[in-house]
């Protein structure tokens, strides 16, 4: 018998399926983002960096020396892994992690004040520029933090922590009436 397996998001049941009222500060959770860990082989750090930079619509997040998370909203997990494996053949190990990671997007005028409740890193635009990304601790949970705009940040958490991080972000944002919902973009 052939089966079809439906994928679940860890916040299913916690967020409404339909977008609700959106406050100025908003937490947007995309249901599906293709994510892969990329680990440069010995001595190939520079070429992998260059390769990733040239990869077009793949976003790259710094995880550690020679290690990155590669994200794509258009690729499927499989196609992202294939694309990266081709692109970085003989220079990096690629491990698809799309189900293992959950993406949270925070935007709005108060996001820095919200994030300061959990993250010790100075997020002043002069210190943490647009395009910067890094693994940081948010409260007690490790996340990859990226600044995607003046007042826009993305947090990538391990799946098992997704509900806990979501709870934390809601509490951090309640002062500013932070709203939350699944991404309308997918």
């Amino acid at each position: 018998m052939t089966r079809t397996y439906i994928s679940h998001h860890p916040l299913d049941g916690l967020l409404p399926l339909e977008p609700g009222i959106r406050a100025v500060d908003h937490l947007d959770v995309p249901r599906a983002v293709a994510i892969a860990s990329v680990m440069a082989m010995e001595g190939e750090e520079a070429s992998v960096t260059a390769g990733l930079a040239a990869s077009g619509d793949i976003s790259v997040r710094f995880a550690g020396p020679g290690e990155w998370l590669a994200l794509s909203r258009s690729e499927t997990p499989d196609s992202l892994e294939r694309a990266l494996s081709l692109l970085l053949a003989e220079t990096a190990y690629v491990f698809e992690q799309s189900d293992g990671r959950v993406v949270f997007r925070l935007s709005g005028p108060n996001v820095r004040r919200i994030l300061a409740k959990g993250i010790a890193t100075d997020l002043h635009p002069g210190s943490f520029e647009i395009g910067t990304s890094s693994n940081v601790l948010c409260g007690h949970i490790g996340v990859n933090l990226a600044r995607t705009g003046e007042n826009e940040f993305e947090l990538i958490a391990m799946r098992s922590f997704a509900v806990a991080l979501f709870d934390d972000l809601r509490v951090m944002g309640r002062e500013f009436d932070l709203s939350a919902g699944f991404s309308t973009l997918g």
Partner: protein
Amino acid sequence: MASLIHCPHCGIRPKEEFSIRGDASLVRPDPAASDEAWNDYVHIRSNPRGRYHEHWQHGAGCRRWLVVERDTFTHEVFSVTDAASVARKAGR
């Protein structure tokens, strides 16, 4: 030092992001080294009051092991270096 560490890969980070494993001046002996050398490596510590090299891992960051050179009395940090590069320089 006890509040912030300047990670060479990630910048200034709070202590909470790190874990600590002790004396970084110790080098794992050759398998053929004497029993005494092995016992010293595993059990004996110089434990100086003053300048000291200590292993810290940036576990919530880049996951690299770092050698933090610091003063055990004033807590002043002199340098923070990637442990692998220290080890390679030492010929490990």
